[in-house]
């Protein structure tokens, strides 16, 4: 069940564009990775763009929360706060996200982004859950 959601999630056009991949998705937890390639840099030969890290976080958090939702629920990002702690230059950015609390309408998710073992960013996100009408 959860397995089948991986490709669906990576199929979001923007996720494909930025190259974020999920390596684990289970019970309110996700492990997402993004390779540091030339395309995600802030400046040529520089560090990863802040927007790329924010994207990795948004995708990772969305995946973690998705595991707790039914097929009739959708989510929207209401707030995203990212604290940037170190600048990743190469290798892989790993984002681990955990749902702290999922209410009926509001969910709070927390993420840590590591690059080569160093904590590169810490983020908190708030999501709003909407229900689709069953047809």
């Amino acid at each position: 069940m959860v397995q089948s959601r991986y490709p669906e999630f990576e199929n979001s056009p923007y996720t494909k564009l930025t190259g974020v991949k999920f390596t684990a998705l289970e019970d309110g937890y996700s492990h997402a990775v993004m390779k540091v390639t030339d395309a995600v840099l802030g400046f040529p030969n520089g560090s990863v763009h802040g927007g790329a890290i924010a994207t990795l976080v948004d995708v990772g958090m969305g995946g973690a929360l998705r595991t707790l939702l039914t097929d009739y629920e959708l989510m929207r990002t209401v707030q995203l706060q990212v604290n940037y702690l170190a600048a990743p230059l190469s290798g892989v950015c790993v984002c681990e996200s955990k749902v702290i609390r999922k209410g009926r309408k509001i969910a709070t998710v927390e993420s840590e982004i590591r690059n080569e073992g160093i904590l590169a960013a810490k983020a908190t996100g708030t999501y709003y859950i909407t229900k689709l009408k069953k047809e």
Partner: protein
Amino acid sequence: MTETSNSKYRLSPFAKLAGVKVNRSEKGFSQCVIEISEQTYNLQRTAHGGDISTLVDCGIFYAFHPFLSKDEAIRTVQLQINYFAVAASGDLVCESKIINKGKRIATLESEVKNEGNLVAEATGILYINKVKDD
């Protein structure tokens, strides 16, 4: 991939990938635009939250960049975005302005609009560091 129509401003590789265009970059103000397309959709076929945050990060960068001297560089320390509405078509226009410029820390504010509707509001904190000459 959207190519920038405006070659006056240097764009980062990721900004190019996300399709960011810079209309104005002045001391303390910037206007950046992303055209919503298939490429920037999330699964619900609206603009991805990550795309909006990329636009904001670029916006605060270009609103502060004109202040910098040759031996200074900036990095984003914190970005907080409040999302109010979804946007499915048209342009996302991000206007950023400076709130406070300290010696080392600058705070900026951005508003993202889609066809006149406020889609998101954000606060960003930048750190100004000196680049050492080798």
